[in-house]
């Protein structure tokens, strides 16, 4: 019997329709012509409802992250690569080697298929570069007006090698605090595109997968105490999380924190503090003082850590305050972020 003819998806003029999420032929076509074609790997090709994969020995790490960034495309990236990097980084911050990703899409009816393809291609590229394949997924479509283009949830699994014990609760008085590069790039890149906030800027989002940097750091210093990526809430909020978890205080020096001139200027202009602006390709590391110089060298030796710096130290403090010696010569609290500095940043 002759196979029925199916018109190929129109990636130039087509748009997402309700049928693309209804479980019928249209959905099967979207899955095959877009998702499988782009993410292409053995587990996915089987087209089961789940992926079966081999896992090396060690402690399993699972992390999940939803992405609702607006706008979908921004200088230096888009929601696609961001959704890959975000989850890989969450896995990597346990000191783990990320292995596989699952991706779940909530599409809004009317989203141009060209945009969707651009996003999926970017995701696939990010996953291939990182060496972490997307092995299973799901697609749902909501009526026009009930979503905002596309929301992507990714889940990642990875394995922590033996001897590595990274946790937000391991910071000890005397430990040294390092950051892997400049603070606030992602948030300012997004803001530069926002409605009503248009100003010309050359700032690109720093979105990047950090697991390779983490591996290089662990090679040099296996006993890193804490790792965390300062995403929403920025450096300030993440340091507060770590201080609270570990029951310690942290003192940072304002003049040692790397911030790009353009980010500083944009923040000044908008009344924001770069310490609270989101990053998507940076990490904070805390280690014993004896390991600090070695760790700094390892970070600077990696392309994603070239501008790494020692920014502070852990102190004893039952109130778990994060304090900062200002460049001006005073001292102040660096508190948790209050309210929402800017919504829908990742």
């Amino acid at each position, binding site marked *: 019997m002759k196979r029925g003819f199916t018109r190929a998806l129109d990636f130039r003029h087509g748009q997402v329709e309700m049928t693309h999420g209804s479980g019928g032929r249209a959905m099967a076509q979207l899955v095959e012509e877009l998702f499988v074609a782009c993410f292409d790997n053995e587990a996915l090709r089987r087209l089961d409802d789940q992926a079966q994969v081999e896992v090396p020995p060690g402690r399993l790490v699972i992390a999940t992250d939803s992405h609702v960034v607006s706008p979908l495309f921004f200088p230096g990236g888009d929601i696609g690569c961001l959704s890959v990097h975000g989850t890989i980084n969450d896995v990597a911050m346990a000191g783990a080697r990320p292995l596989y990703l699952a991706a779940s899409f909530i599409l809004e009816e009317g989203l141009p298929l060209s945009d969707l393809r651009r996003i999926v291609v970017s995701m696939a590229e990010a996953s291939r570069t990182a060496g972490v394949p997307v092995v299973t997924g799901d697609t749902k479509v909501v009526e026009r007006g009930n979503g905002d283009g596309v929301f992507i949830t990714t889940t990642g699994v990875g394995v922590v090698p033996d001897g590595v014990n990274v946790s937000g609760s391991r910071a000890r008085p005397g430990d040294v605090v390092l950051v892997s590069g400049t603070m606030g790039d992602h948030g300012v890149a997004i803001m530069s595109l926002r409605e009503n906030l248009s100003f010309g800027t050359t700032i690109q989002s720093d979105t990047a997968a950090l697991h390779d940097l983490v591996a290089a750091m662990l090679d040099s210093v296996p006993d890193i105490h804490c790792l965390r990526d300062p995403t929403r809430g920025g450096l300030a909020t993440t340091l507060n999380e770590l201080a609270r978890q570990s029951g310690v205080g942290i003192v940072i020096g304002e003049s040692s924190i790397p911030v790009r001139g353009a980010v500083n200027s944009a923040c000044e202009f908008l009344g924001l503090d770069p310490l609270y602006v989101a990053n998507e390709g940076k990490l904070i590391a805390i280690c014993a003082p004896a390991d600090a110089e070695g760790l700094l060298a390892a970070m600077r030796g990696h392309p994603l850590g070239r501008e790494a710096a020692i920014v502070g130290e852990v102190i004893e403090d039952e109130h778990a305050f994060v304090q900062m010696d200002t460049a001006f010569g*005073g001292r*102040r609290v660096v*508190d948790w972020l209050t309210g929402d500095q800017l919504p829908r940043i990742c």
Partner: protein
Amino acid sequence: MKYIDEFRDGKLAQSLGGAIARTANANRRYRFMEFCGGHTHAIARYGVTDLLPPNVRMIHGPGCPVCVLPIGRIDMAIEIARRPQVILATYGDTLRVPASGRLSLLKAKAQGADVRMVYSTQDAVRLAEQHPEREVVMFAIGFETTTPPTALAIKEAEAKGLDNFFVFCNHVLTPSAISHILESPEVRDIGTVPIDGFVGPAHVSTIIGSRPYEFFAEEYQKPVVIAGFEPLDVMQAILMLVRQVNDGRCEVENEFTRAVSREGNLKAQSLVAEVFELRREFEWRGLGAVPYSALRLKDKYAAYDAERHYGVADRQVADHKACECGAILRGVKQPADCKLFGTACTPENPLGSCMVSSEGACAAHYTYGRFRDIARKTAAGGAAT
């Protein structure tokens, strides 16, 4: 950052701090009120107090536009925002100010009111153009600095023939607030708030000039130094105030000469005079009803006046019983003196207005300086045992 970093230089700050310590007479205390929230914020954020000798103390004034807005005015804004045809445009800080019935504009938004944050009044005019079927109301707040942009927006709406743009006017005036503080019994008679001088407003003064302060300096015999919002500006102004006190002078001096002249911005002043007129009185949180301290739209521009258009009536709502915002805004108390500070009232769940805006005395102290309270308490406890 050029033209900014120069005013935040740590080395200069150290030497200015040294100069203040040398100039200040060790046998007396100096208490200066910084009127503006911008100064309060700069002092807390850069840790200026760490660089001052112990006998020079700063008292936070009421110059934070969000903080002085009474609950009743926020209630009125929520009432306007809840009308289905209305888009309420507002500056970000106002969103979280607590109103009656555990509401705020942010909560009203979550319940369905169309409340949008804008960076300028021009954005609100643009919203009105983009949504001709809706009514866009600008929730206009602030001192003399933000008043000219509101006037400009009304003129722009008039020029564009927009009949769906309105202003809910809450603009207030700095000089009347300063006189009110100086007239208060705590300052005049009881002497519980001894104020030796004022750090005068920065941005407000770019509009009104330095001349309006000459009256207080003369009448109340208090020196005024107008200062910019950068930390070195504040320190330089403090040094100038200390010198005036030492010399027994009560003059208006201008540290912020790079932006402020004696006459101010005449163009902005005439624009404001064209659109606005004085209200007979206006309620300030903490200060109560202050005569001739706020503006409303002139009859000529009544068509743009949200209060008249929606017929919302002014109302008085009492603050939380234990809230000390009033006393803090008058300089009578410090944030840590309030029972609610840091317990029931935090930046996440503000009860009082001083905890809302980053320029508010409580929020600035909570966010940047509260570790000092602990040090103080520990020191006090240690001394007792």
